[in-house]
């Protein structure tokens, strides 16, 4: 398993060529395009991104059964984690969801009438749920992590609550996918449907990894910090 994971000597462009979907991660990790033929380590250094953190996220996104050990998590500089998660939230809310909504709007127009309205409001409600979910994390969870990382014994929030309340934000997306490619009537233009199906699939995959990073990297990290600072769960 380990040998299949990426190393810092590889060219960043080789990594992207092998796994093009990682391209959407770069901006969120603080790396701009135009990196030429430089190695992962060089590009990360120039962009002020910790190389091992960068590799950890790329490995999680690429290898489905890769679960980083606690030792790996604690041995990695995690200062970039919360900024990365926040940027991901913005990417979903400001870029991906509006993009999907534009396609769905067009489909709703073709459906027309009350059906069109019910169809689009299903998505709008979902979007609202996602935003509320993210907002909760940004207001409650992330400041707690930032405080712990700077050594403060912050008890305003406890990570034990996180898994307990962490709701599933991909489920409704799967419902939407089923509706869109199985049940739309023939008057709806296929081109729009195909575009949106790919967009939904990509977002759904991305959100699954995002949830994974929160539950399998962020939570163990915070649990460790809380214990170290003597905060009892």
């Amino acid at each position, binding site marked *: 398993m380990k040998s299949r994971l990426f190393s810092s000597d590889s060219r960043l462009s080789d990594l992207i060529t092998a796994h093009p979907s990682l391209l959407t991660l770069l901006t969120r990790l603080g790396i701009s395009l135009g990196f030429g033929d430089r190695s992962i380590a060089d590009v990360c250094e120039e962009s002020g991104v910790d190389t091992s953190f960068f590799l950890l996220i790329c490995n999680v996104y690429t290898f489905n059964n890769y679960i980083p050990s606690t030792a790996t998590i604690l041995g990695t500089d995690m200062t970039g984690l919360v900024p990365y998660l926040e940027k991901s939230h913005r990417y979903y809310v400001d870029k991906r969801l509006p993009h999907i909504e534009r396609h769905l709007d067009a489909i709703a127009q073709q459906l027309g*009438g*009350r*059906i069109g309205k*019910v*169809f689009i409001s*299903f998505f709008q*409600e*979902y979007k609202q749920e996602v935003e509320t979910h993210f907002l909760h994390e940004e207001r409650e969870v992330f400041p707690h992590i930032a405080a712990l990382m700077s050594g403060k014994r912050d008890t305003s929030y406890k990570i034990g609550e996180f898994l307990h309340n962490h709701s599933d934000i991909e*489920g*409704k997306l*799967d*419902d*939407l996918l*089923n*509706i869109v490619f*199985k*049940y*739309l*009537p023939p008057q709806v233009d296929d081109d729009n449907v195909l575009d949106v199906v790919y967009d939904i699939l990509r977002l759904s995959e991305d959100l699954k990894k995002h949830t994974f990073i929160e539950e399998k990297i962020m939570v163990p990290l915070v649990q460790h910090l809380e214990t170290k600072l003597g905060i009892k769960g």
Partner: protein
Amino acid sequence: MKQRLLIVEPSEVIVEGLKSILEGQVRFKVLDPELDPDRYMERIVANRPDIVLINPTLVDHVAKLRDENPVALVALVYQYVERETLKNFDAVVDIRDSRAVIIETLAQASPGESESGKSNYELTKRETAVLVQLAQGKTNKEIADALNVSVHTVISHRKNITRKTGIKSVAGLTVYAMLNNLIDEISLL
């Protein structure tokens, strides 16, 4: 594909006898028998058998049962049963029949593969009824009362609806119901 067989029969002696005859058979998968005659509807909804072997005196509404579930109904007879009653069944097994005759009767009664494959993904009338009520914002309890079934049965129907459509949320099922013209636009408020 093995035919899933549910035996509904309160007598353990008869159930055990049938099981021992059928269990070595490659054509059938014998589900856990239902000894409680009041629970057979729930079991049919929950376990989706292909064949139900049942004492005809236990079945109150054969037509209703058939409407809602695509199963072959086989009467299990060990006393005198009126000919009129038996008309509603796909086949009749008499417990005095030989082992070979019982197996053959059940095999003949079982639905063909293509047919069961087709009905597997189509919503039954009862599932459609549950779906419509769900889309109108009713709770499981309200649906159970309206359709005169237990809450447990409603939940089983919901599981089947989700398995067939791939849609889990009530909001998603509402969109599905509208797209399939199952609810008129006015009833949804």
